[in-house]
């Protein structure tokens, strides 16, 4: 209980303290890193408790449950919160070493962490919307970081499209309250079975559109390349490694936790959309010359795997979806950060990230792909296995095209390399990807717990 409130309060208080400080001073940025590290420590304690003794619940203000807002930490929430905070720490440390160029940058990152941990640890639908808007508002401002024309354009596109997504989400919340008369996720899930099929499907589609926009799935991806390629590497890492988790978490939490009937009904559509996303993202990524754009299209392809796993469903499919969301967040953060720097160690880090995206052992992505293959085999679909193989082959092609362009070609400019500390941050992230790939049991167990938490809520 205490670790739950500490995990939520630390980034809040730290964010409020950091806002008036001048973020261009390095010590302020390091303060932000320390605050995020504190959040991570609280989350680790919380995770240990959740795994040992089940979901932790807290009702704000000491109200009885049903009146107060329920904060609830289960394995699914803490998994996503942990990954997001790790990515945020890496990105903040990266900019802290270079020296942030905007007053508000460290404070915005910490407030983003506050919004993200809040939405991953809430048990209330409307509270989810509030935290979601806090996180999104912080990320709109973050996208403009750098202040160049292309960053402004990226911020404008990002804010415009995602605000539309947010309001669709809000309308779906209104519909959900109308049909169930409840806002606590557990009550909503209980009462969904009594709701008419048409109303339920309509609301479920609203939620699906809202989260797909965040995630950048195929028909809703159009904003993503401009934004990821336009923003600075650290911001792109945050957007793809932390903010995009909202979409994956939302699809799992609402799709599998609340709309399980609708999910079963729409499973074929989801698998087809996911497959389109994989192929589209892969083909376009292979055709891009610019590293950041390649990574952006690769992100569209990678979230397709999550959707395919979600569409197949069942214990195996959901576990694969959780696992692959985590894998993808770490991969993208590593690759965006590695592509923004140059010098020794980085080629190795990039290769690890590339192998992880393609799903080659010993990197973490292998575990993710393995679970996906298990999903496809359980579903008994040869087409899915072929699709996964084709997707992996495509990602191997575009990743190593880019590797060749960036690290084999000597551009002859004789540029000096990035600070050692920066490269060490990226190397640490790469080592994390390698280490979890070599010893995946904790992550596998956590995703198993997450699925149990989801299906427990279903019943």
């Amino acid at each position, binding site marked *: 209980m205490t670790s739950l409130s500490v995990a939520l309060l630390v980034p809040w208080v730290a964010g409020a303290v950091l806002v008036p400080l001048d973020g261009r001073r390095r010590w302020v940025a390091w303060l932000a890193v320390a605050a995020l590290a504190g959040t991570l420590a609280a989350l680790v304690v919380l995770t240990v408790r959740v795994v040992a003794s089940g979901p932790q619940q807290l009702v704000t203000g000491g109200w009885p449950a049903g009146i107060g807002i329920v904060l609830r930490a289960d394995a699914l929430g803490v998994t996503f919160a942990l990954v997001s905070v790790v990515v945020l720490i890496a990105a903040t440390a990266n900019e802290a070493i*270079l020296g942030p160029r905007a007053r508000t940058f460290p404070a915005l990152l910490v407030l983003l962490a506050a919004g993200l941990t809040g939405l991953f640890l809430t048990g209330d639908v409307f509270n989810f919307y509030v935290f979601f808007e806090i996180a999104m*508002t912080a990320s709109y401002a973050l996208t403009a970081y750098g202040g160049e024309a292309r960053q402004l354009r990226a*911020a*404008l596109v990002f804010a*415009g499209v995602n605000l539309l997504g947010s309001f669709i989400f809000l309308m779906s919340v*209104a519909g959900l309250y109308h049909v169930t008369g409840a806002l606590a996720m557990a009550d909503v899930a209980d009462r969904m079975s009594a709701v008419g099929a048409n109303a339920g499907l309509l609301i479920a589609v609203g939620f699906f559109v809202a989260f797909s926009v965040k995630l950048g799935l195929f028909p809703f991806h159009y904003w993503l390349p401009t934004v990821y390629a336009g923003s600075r590497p650290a911001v792109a890492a945050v957007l793809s490694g932390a903010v995009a988790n909202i979409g994956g978490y939302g699809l799992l939490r609402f799709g599998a936790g609340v709309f399980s009937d609708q999910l079963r009904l729409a499973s074929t559509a989801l698998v087809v959309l996911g497959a389109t996303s994989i192929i589209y993202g892969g083909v376009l990524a292979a055709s891009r010359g610019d590293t950041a754009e390649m990574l952006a299209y690769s992100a569209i392809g990678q979230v397709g795997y999550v959707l395919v796993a979600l569409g197949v469903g069942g214990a195996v499919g959901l576990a694969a979806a959780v696992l692959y969301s985590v894998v993808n967040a770490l991969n993208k953060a590593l690759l965006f950060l590695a592509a923004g*720097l140059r010098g020794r160690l980085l080629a190795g880090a990039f290769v690890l990230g590339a192998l992880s995206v393609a799903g080659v052992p010993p990197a973490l992505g292998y575990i993710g792909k393995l679970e996906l293959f298990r999903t496809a085999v359980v579903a008994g679909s040869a087409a899915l296995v072929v699709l996964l193989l084709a997707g992996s082959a495509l990602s191997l092609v575009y990743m190593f095209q880019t590797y060749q362009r960036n690290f084999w070609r000597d551009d002859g400019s004789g540029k000096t390399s*990035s600070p050692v500390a*920066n490269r060490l941050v990226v190397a640490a992230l790469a080592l994390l990807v390698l280490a979890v790939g070599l010893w995946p049991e904790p992550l596998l167990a956590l995703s198993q717990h997450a699925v149990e938490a989801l299906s427990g809520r279903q019943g």
Partner: protein
Amino acid sequence: MILAFALAVAVLFGSGAYLLLQRDLLRVVGGIALISQAAAVTLIAASLTRGQAPIAPDPSRPVSDPVPQALVLTALVIGLATLALLLALVHRVVVVFRTTRREALTAEETERAHALEPEQQRDRDEAT
């Protein structure tokens, strides 16, 4: 009553979507503002109940549901904040690009398209 609400939401959302597709950035912001209002009206319409005020109610008579009002207030505040942020962004765009027209922005963008690669290169160089 439900029909009136539905029509209001439809008109708000439709006008918002129309403005969102315009070329002028201020109209785009106006469109997003209208859509946020459409969401607020949906929230009210989806859950409005008649009854006495829920403060110290008389238990024999029906009480109106206070939750949607709290939700709408929160949503309005959030909508206002995001609107302010968007306007600040558009202001930055006006300062940098000296236009609020999207096609001028795109033209600028095409000019910058070949400048993009060196610019990104410079970002990477800054990191060295």
